[in-house]
């Protein structure tokens, strides 16, 4: 199994200005064979959804450290659906307390990755989800 041929957008919505984690994930996914697009800091969910459509990605990974993960995941899912792209898979990573996980899954997140997880674990989860 690999991520060869899979296109993944790594995006940073919200106001926090730390993208080291996002860049590390981007590189790990590239090393697992994916084609990775990165959008830069502080992008709106609407902007992220448009880029996801134009780039025809298989998945969007949102990196969120600001604490507003619920709103941002919901809003991104809504924007994707509005663009007829509700089938693009959504992942979220960052500082996300476990009591929020259920709600995030309901909002459309297919994977939730926290700082405690190994990179290998994250990559394996993405791989399993996209090859399912």
């Amino acid at each position, binding site marked *: 199994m690999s991520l060869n041929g899979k296109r993944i957008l790594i995006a940073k919505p919200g106001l926090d200005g730390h993208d080291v984690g996002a860049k590390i994930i981007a590189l790990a996914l590239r*090393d697992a064979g994916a084609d990775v697009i990165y959008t830069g800091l502080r992008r709106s969910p609407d902007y992220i959804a448009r880029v996801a459509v134009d780039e*025809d990605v298989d998945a969007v990974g949102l990196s969120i450290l600001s604490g507003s993960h619920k709103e941002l995941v919901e809003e991104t899912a809504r924007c994707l659906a509005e663009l007829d792209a509700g089938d693009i898979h959504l992942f979220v990573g960052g500082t996300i307390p476990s009591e929020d996980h259920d709600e995030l899954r309901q909002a459309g997140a297919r994977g939730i990755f926290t700082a405690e997880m190994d990179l290998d674990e994250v990559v394996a989860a993405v791989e399993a989800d996209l090859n399912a």
Partner: protein
Amino acid sequence: MSETSSNPRRALSRALSRIANADVAETLAQQGAVPTPEMSRIGVTGAPGAGKSTLIARLAKLRKGEDHKIAVLAIDPTSPVSKGSILGDRIRMDAIADDPNIFIRSIPSRRSHDGLADNTADLLAAMEGHGFDEVILESVGVGQAEYTIRTLVDTVVLVLLPESGDAIQAMKAGILEMADIYVVSKADLPGAELMVAEIQQVAERQTADGWAPPVISTSRNDLEGFARLDAAISAHAKWRKARMDETATQRARARYQAQGLIARRIDEIMEADNSLLDLDPRGLFDALIAKLNPSRRDA
């Protein structure tokens, strides 16, 4: 998955993926009867980090309009180790990504070694077929990109860094003969003026068919240089239209495409049966030629 979508951008985007991922047989099957409309194509090439994406963002913003929709095809290198890629051109074009009259697509180079990507010709044609008036192609800044991009686009813009020695480097590699317009980027950095003067001297000697390649310096925070580039591209397009040899252009493109498809088909054959590689060179050559047309052999 279906390419029909209530969202036309999604439909285009899907179509581009299908074309980019098509193997040789699929690519051949997809060659439509649809004639390529005559749209202008601009190719931007130059060493890694020369400032190509930054320049394209500024240029697209100047050239786009309600009646002039622009598509950008940006190619970044595939890692030979993981076969993955970081498609980083787009991040330099963030300022224009929201514009409804501009469409940006990032593509990995995959096996292609000529600075472009598999099926680039078909991707360009598909963008044109979806109503874009102009396509800007960003090559991977390595190897022989300058030569191949020449066959696929109408106007080649070569971006050079203002570092001393770069002019000599470019002359040695022969790439200075390939461009219609030279840009010395990052003019805010030292060395730019000298570089412009050097390139100007070289460029003066290569006035071909009446087109004297201009040398333009640009700096990312100064729109004036990009405005001059914009004007130079329009002037070149006009000049080219007046004297373009349509047959020669189409022949060069057909040749590039056929060579690319055959090279990929041979790769596919060797990957499917790598014991072929144990043959001596002559045997391998003959076996590959025989396998290029299996239907005839098996019949």
